[in-house]
Structures are given as C-alpha cells and as structure tokens.
C-alpha cells in the first residue's frame, strides 16, 4: 500500500518553468547565433562590418547629404569652398525630368501620354490581381482594346481630333514602356502559338516552330535588332518600309515570343495527361480543349515564369538604344552630354536615377512573381 502510494505521483502544482536555453534567448542570443557563433564567424562578421563602415557613409553623403537638390545650371553642382567634394546633382534630374519621361513629345499633347500610362496601369492591375472580377474581360481589354487605344492616343487619329505625332518625337520612359508593352502583348499570344506548334504531332508545324525558337534563342538581341533595322527595309517593298521604332518593335516582339514560347511549353508540360484525356473524353475538339481546359491551367502555373521573362524583356528594352531609338537610357545619355550641366558628377547622377527606375520596376515585378509562386504552392498543397 505504502509502495503504491510512493509510485503514484500526482502533481499538484505546475512545474517550475525552465529558463530557455541561454544561447537562443533575446537579442544577445540572436546575435551570438547569427553573427558570433564561432571564431571564423566572428572574423567574417568583423570583415562585413568594416566593409559597411567603409562603403555606406560615403554613399549616403554622396547621394543625400552633399547632394544638390535645386538649381538651374551646373553652378549648383560644382565644387565650392564649403563643399570641396560635391555630391549627386539631383537638380540636373529635376530640370530634365519631363524630357526623361516624354522625350520630345509636344508639350500640349502630353496629356495623351499620361492617359496612356493610366490606361496601361488599369490593364496591368486587372490582369495581375489574381482575384479581380471578370479577368477574361481584362484579357480582352489588355490584348485588344488597349493596343488600339494606345495606337490612336500616342501616334494620333485625325478623325478623333488627335493630331499625328511622328515616332521620332517619342522618347524617354514613354518609349521604354511602349517597347516593353508591345513586347508582352505580342509575345504572349505568339509564344502560346509557337509552344503549341512545338508540341504538335504534325512534323512540318513542329519543324517550323523548333527552327524559329532555337534560331532566335541562339543569337543576341542586338543582332535581331540589327536585322530588324537594316534587313527588314530590304525585305518589304519600298513604299511599305516601316519607321524606325516600328522596326525595333517587330524585332523585340519576335525575340520575346521565342523566349515566351519556351516558358509556355514548360507550363504545358506541367499539366497532367489526364487533363487532356478528360477533355477528349468530353468530346472537345483540339482548339476548344486547349482554350477551355489546358491553357488556363498551364498559364496559371507558369505565371511566375512569364513575369520573370517579362523582367528580362524590360531590361532588354535598353538595347533599342543601340539602333538609335530614344528610350529612357538614351535620353539620360543625351542629357548628360549637355554642356550646361557638364560637371564631374552629372553622369553618375544620371545613371543612378536610371538604375533607381529600373530597379524599382524590376524588383517590384520579381516580388509579385514570388508572391504568385507561394500562392500557387499553397493552392497545390490543399
């Protein structure tokens, strides 16, 4: 009896809470684990801290503290007795800002460009927001309404009272956005067609698609642009010869569609065979099977990759610079050569501004792609 009483132990009060392991608790624990866990680790941390102390304060001083924020010419950004080493010349960016955005687009017609930016933003928002209402209408808007609307808005429609504006006057961010948008609007449908053709059982169709895709992916974009700008005028009758911007747009669209085709093909390959068979069992013919069953799933799966391809395309738009088109980077190059702003810091400031623009756009898109990816992964797990 006594023995069982000893063995049956009933706790009457909660146990003393153990202290959490000293190493992991609180800020010091975190520091010890992540920065100072071993001797080598301490050395690495010290090297990194030294690097940060060496690099960050001069950068801060250059871009913020010592920078010239206002002024009308180079005087604002030159070295002075108070400031022997002047910082970035943001005044230069301020003065040239509208040129960077619109190029030589006529001053009184710039509302058309603004309207185009708004219309584009609506389209992108509609398609990018995965639970937006009527995304099918959004696709129609983006791929059919928007191109027609933008064409009329930007280059002019005399019947609607919009005067013609030759593309030679377009420039800056406007051209960059136009090239990128045309790239995606043209390359997605073309890429889907090419991807379907490459997976086709018909030998001729497959051969043409494979040849085109491998050819374009094997050469640099610059040579495609050269081809578009030097050879295209030879291939069409003289009276039809397209203007410079249009030629570059054709080159970019063809280039992007080959890359898009490979991305879409990856999406198609990820769709289980059962989906094809189920669609066939329902008696759907090829095109309706693709449009109603396969492609909606494939495009959804591969959306992050489509966005990543688009980031590449967006960065590649800078190459039209080389065939003489005034994109955003080219306007920076033109402005920094202006003698009224000739200072040792003008180029760096111009490039920093351009880098900031591209970084914000591309980083934003890559974050979006990553979000979609996690969302898809969650949907798959369920």
């Amino acid at each position, binding site marked *: 009896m006594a023995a069982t009483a000893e063995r049956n132990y009933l706790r009457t009060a909660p146990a003393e809470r153990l202290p959490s392991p000293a190493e992991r608790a609180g800020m010091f624990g975190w520091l010890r684990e*992540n*920065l100072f*866990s071993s001797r080598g*680790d301490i050395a*690495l*941390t010290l090297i*990194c*801290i030294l690097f*940060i102390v060496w690099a960050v304060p001069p950068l801060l001083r250059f871009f913020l503290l010592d920078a010239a924020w206002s002024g009308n010419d180079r005087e604002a950004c030159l070295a002075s007795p108070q400031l022997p080493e002047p910082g970035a010349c943001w005044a230069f960016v301020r003065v040239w800002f509208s040129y960077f955005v619109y190029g030589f687009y006529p001053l009184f017609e710039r509302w058309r460009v603004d309207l185009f930016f708004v219309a584009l933003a609506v389209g992108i928002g509609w398609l990018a927001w995965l639970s937006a209402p009527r995304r099918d209408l959004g696709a129609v808007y983006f791929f059919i309404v928007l191109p027609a609307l933008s064409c009329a808005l930007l280059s002019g429609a005399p019947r609607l009272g919009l005067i013609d504006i030759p593309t030679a006057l377009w420039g800056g961010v406007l051209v960059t956005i136009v090239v990128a948008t045309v790239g995606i609007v043209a390359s997605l449908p073309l890429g889907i067609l090419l991807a*379907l053709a490459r*997976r086709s*059982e*018909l*030998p*001729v*169709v497959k051969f*043409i698609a494979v040849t085109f895709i*491998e*050819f374009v*992916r*094997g*050469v*640099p974009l*610059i*040579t495609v642009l*050269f*081809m578009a700008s*030097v*050879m295209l*005028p*030879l*291939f*069409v*009758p*003289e009276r039809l010869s397209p203007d410079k911007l249009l030629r570059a747009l054709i080159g970019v669209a063809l280039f992007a569609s080959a890359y898009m085709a490979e991305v879409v093909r990856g999406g198609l390959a990820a769709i289980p*065979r059962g989906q*094809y*068979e189920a669609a*066939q069992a329902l008696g759907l013919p*090829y095109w309706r099977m693709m449009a109603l069953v396969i492609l909606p799933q494939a495009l959804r799966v591969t959306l992050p990759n489509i966005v990543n391809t688009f*980031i590449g395309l967006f*960065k*590649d738009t*800078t*190459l039209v*610079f*080389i065939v003489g088109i005034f994109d955003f*980077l080219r306007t920076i*190059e033109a402005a920094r050569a202006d003698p009224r702003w000739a200072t*040792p810091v003008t*180029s*760096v400031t111009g*490039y920093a501004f*351009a*880098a900031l623009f*591209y*970084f914000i756009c*591309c*980083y934003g898109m*890559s974050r979006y792609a990553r979000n979609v990816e996690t969302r898809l992964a969650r949907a798959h797990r369920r």
Partner: protein
Amino acid sequence: MPQSMRSPPSSQAARRTGNIALQVALVVIVGGIAYAAIHNAAQNLAEAHIASGFGFWNNTAGFDISQTLIDYSASTSTFGRAFWVGLLNTLLVSGIGIVIATVLGFAVGIARLSRNWLVSHLAGGYVELIRNVPLLLQLLFWYNSVLRALPLVRGSVSLPGGGLLNNRGLFLPRPEFSPGFEYVLVALLLGIAASIVLRLWARRRQDRTGEPMRIFWIAFGLIVVMPAVAFVATGAPLSFSFPTTGRFNVMGGVEILPEFAALLLALSIYTAAFIAEVVRAGILAVPHGQTEAAQALGLRPSTALRYVIVPQAMRVIVPPLTSQYLNLIKNSSLAVAIGYPDLVQVFAGSVLNLTGQAVEVVAITMAVYLFISLVTSLLMNLYGYAIAAEER
C-alpha cells in the same frame, strides 16, 4: 498533341486530310513570305546598286581596330581578317569573363547560404541589386563614370607592382623572357604531369588497400618548388618592362583598353549574380538527409561536402550554368555600345557600314553566335547522357 485514337474511321480519315492540308498551307505561306522577302531584297539591292554575295570578304578593309590579337593593319588586311579579329576579341572577353563570373558567382552563391546573417544578407543585396538593373546601364556606368573618369596620363595612378592606371586604360609590366626560361617551363610541365600520375596511383592504392595518402605537399614540391629551383639555377631568365608615362601617352608594358576592362567588369559582375542564384538553388536541391547520412557515416564536414553534397549539387547546377555562360557570350555583343572591337562592333558595325552588304554581314554574325550556341547545347546533352548513365 495527344489525338484520340478511338474515333470512327471516317472522322479519322477526315482529320488526317485536314492535318495534311494544314501543313501544306503552312509550307505555302512560309515559302511565300520567304520568296516575297528575297524578291523584294533583290529588287531593292539592285536599285541601290549593291552587289550581293560574299565577294567583299577578300577586299581591303581600310579601317583600324584598337585591339588585335592577330596581325592586322588597315591598309593591307581584308574584311575577312577583320572578322577573325572581331571574333577573337569576342572570345577573349567572354573567356576571361566566364572564369571571373564563375569564381565570383560561386563565392556569392555560397555566401548567400551562410549561417552568418550579415554575410548572407550582403550577398543577397548584391544579387538583387545587380539582377534588377539592365546590363547596358551597368556597362555605361563602368565605362563613362568609372574608367573614363580616371586621371589623365600625366596624373596616372601607380599600382603596386609597377602598373599604371589612367583614362587610356590599364598598363601592366610586360614579362620578357631570356634564353633558359624554357627549362623552367619544362620543369613546371613535368611537375604537373608527375602530380597527376601520383594522384592516380594514390587513388588506386586507396581503392586496393583502403589507406588514404596525402599528396598535397608532394604535389606542391613538384609543381612549385621544382620550377622555382630551375628558375634560380638558370639564373633568373625573366625580366619585366615597366610602363612609363610620356607626355600624352604611356610607353612600354601591356596595355589593357578601358573598353575591354569595362566590358569585362560589367559582364562578370552581372553574370555572377545569376550564377550565384544557380549555385544556391543547386545546393538547396540536395536533400538535407544526404548531409545527415554523411554525418552518420562519420564523414567530416569537409569530406561530406566534397564527396556527397557537391557532386549531387553539380548535377543540378551545370545545365543552367551553361545557359548563363551562353548568355554571357551573347551579352558580350553589348560591346558595340562602348566601342570595344568585338564581332558585332567590327563586323556588323564597321564592315556593314563600309560594304553596305547588310544581308550577308548580319547573316554571318548570327551564324557565328548560333554555331556557338548549338555546339554548347550539344556538349550539354552529352554531359546529360554521361550523368544519366551514372545514375542507377
């Protein structure tokens, strides 16, 4: 396109006819476009009085190139020679760029996986910053804001070891060999060969007896000490010609053009960011159980890394790594923006402008890049087969 096989014969026959009709139509359309294009091109060229064909290849070029790896002179060399000069310059910058990008990329990729918070976040910041800014912008920055902004010749920066740095480029001491140096080279080659044989023998011995053998110090003696002894014994047959500043230019030494340096910097830094991501993904793709299994077998961390983790990670890394190398080669064509004489700048730029033979010149340029791409993907496929054969 999985077509159903169970439809009634009549509809199957109809489908087959439809398929053939579709393909014939496609051939007619593509052929028609090609024919119209060629017809128009012939007409336009005839109107512009440009003779087509590759006859220009042997004409005298008549323009100068700033960096030539083979003999070339404006007055006597042909357009064909200019093509080879450009191609070699492309290969030079790509080859060195690939080596630097690989080393930097592997370092950054491994640093991103470091347990040290600062190290991994610095590496992550590098990757995000570099990947999200266009390469052309980075190239212009390096060229115009860094290298062209260096001091003039008179104010050259002296580098340790006798180099000079100014806005005309980087000037390094040029090694000059006197007779007797060939013995040093022979000693070096012998040392390398002997080390390889020794390593093979040590491997075989370990397979047979299980006894490992450390050959590092022996190899060090063979490859470093032996040539050094030969160098001293032959009376140090090597001297350097150091660059010196004149009034407007630098005399002596090896010249590295600022265009070359800018392109090399931009290409290697940009591609390294992508390689870092490839490496990180490759290492993360090896399941953690592999590390644990290696520990359970009693392997030391370094041995486990070398014999268990890296070989498996390489399988994932190599295919995307190759495509990054190809991207680097293709991106080297951005040279045209800063005037480095690569294939595109020399051939699709100068030669095209001088001859006006757009079709031929652009076609040859594209063919070269296409050839490089196809050969690389062929090698990639062979590597793929080799790996597949190793797997059980």
